[in-house]
């Protein structure tokens, strides 16, 4: 599946990421999630208000979801190969 982006000079088709790129992305997402987890823990220890914690947890959840989505893309790519 390709999508087109409008760009000066015409539409650009999105490139399919390669397996090394997806692996790299998944690792980056996972690292961010790990960092965010540490951040959330430190906020909890500092007694941060619940509303702010929810936002940080939402970010963490999004990062984990992106990790999973990237791994799913990678698995799909490897299966196709």
């Amino acid at each position: 599946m390709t999508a087109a982006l409008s760009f000066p000079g015409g539409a650009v088709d999105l490139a399919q990421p390669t397996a090394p790129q997806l692996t790299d992305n998944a690792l980056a997402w996972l690292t961010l999630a790990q960092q965010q987890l540490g951040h959330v823990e430190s906020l909890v220890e500092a007694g941060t208000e619940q509303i702010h914690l929810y936002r940080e947890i939402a970010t963490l959840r999004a990062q984990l979801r992106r990790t999973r989505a990237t791994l799913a893309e990678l698995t799909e790519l490897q299966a196709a190969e």
Partner: protein
Amino acid sequence: MTAPILLVDLSAEFWRNYHATKSGPQAYEFTLERLTELVAQYPRMVICCEGKSPKRFAWFPEYKANRPPKPEDAKESLRQIIAELEATPGIPVLTCDGYEADDVIATLCLQATEPVHILSRDKDLYALLSPTVRMLIDDKLVGPAECVAKFGVRPNQIRDFLAIVGDASDNVPGCPGIGAKGAALLLQHFGTLAAIKAAPVRDIEKMPGVGKKTLFSLREWDPALAVKLVTLMLDAPVQISELFPQQESEADMADMTRIQTERKNGPLKIVVYGPEGVGKTRFGAFCNKPIFLCAESGLSAPDLANVPAFPAPETWPDVLAAIEHLKTTEHPYRTLVIDSIVWLADFVRADVRAREKMTAAQYDDYGRGEKFAFDSWVKLASDLDALQAAKGMHVIIIGHSSPEIFQNPQGEDYARFQLALTKKAAERWKQWPDFLLYMSQEIFTKKSKDDKTHKGVVGGHRIYTERTAAFDAKNRINLPAEIEYETEDPWRAFAQAVRETVAPKATEPKPEATAAA
């Protein structure tokens, strides 16, 4: 979308091409060609440019004074690229007065909660490298390991390294007599520039390759200016979450759009209503790239302060003009959230009264005003349909609920919750959407131990998707009748329920395929 965000130092890329070709138009072509290649891999690209009067020039008038003046034709080509990129939807071009592109990139990296790649080869930017922030140099990704291999110091030591060595390209003076090797050795041993300055002479003397001359230079040298000039500023007035907002719910809405596309080829139409304080505004705020059309006080919760919204309309034509604006201009928004339809009803009433020159009593007389008002609602619905057709935007309309007595032909009359509008208008807005959702907090009664008294007990929050005796609701994809949600993010629970409802059906083999097998 899982590809990292790409931050582009446009001037650096352009001038590199210019120095290679010595031609403005050719540099223009090469730069655009490179960006076109990259945007295919990085759909979320941010162009960072130098703003007017960078602060470093005020701190040190000799800053970059060693560079020859730039030719006018090349400057014009650069301006042309910037103008073209600015006109491209979905590609933010950032210029902050007082800040250089590096500072904008550094600020965005600090704010990012997702992987970032930087298109630049500027030494200053090595300070930002981490497992999640990498530089893209000659199609290779450069991370902290490459920084250590190249300079002999870690990214968090780069600032001190550059302060000691100086930056000839920016005309930043370093410590006289100490080169890259010496600076790396000192930083490897002492860790930071402050530690080097504070170290006893005998400790520095023990370092191999540090002669008396170096030692003397170090002691005499005041690093304050160099440190200030090579330190990346992290307070540029930019916000990465505004460039690509609601990244987490994008996947939700993407899934839902796919579902809808499979079924009826169209963006979503949702009307959600319920009592106060059940999270209706949050339902809209956490969907895909929303823009709110609401009263000034509509997004008052502190964590919703950054949700984009039109200036609060004051008349009915303002409301229609806002929708027209979304329909006819390029913008990054994917969902229009109207909060609330009840608030719009006041505008409709005022508009009809002014247009038809009616007093309040005449308006209410035998529902005379309502007949005209209905035309206004029909116009709004048709404008929203046109917006969806033109831009594929989802529309979420938020409403309040009010109890109405339902005349039951088969038994006793009973109260049920309706959209808080006149009957005719409520009927119109119940028919229009694909999803009519009733949000509420479950309330039930509990008997006391002696069985004599009943006590009201508040339960969890629910989104109801099917009509019951107590309220109207509907959906067209067989959602569960009740979806439990947390008030902080009702959208998530709804999107999850939609996915779970539709996903198994999407993978079911078609009857023909089964028969063929």
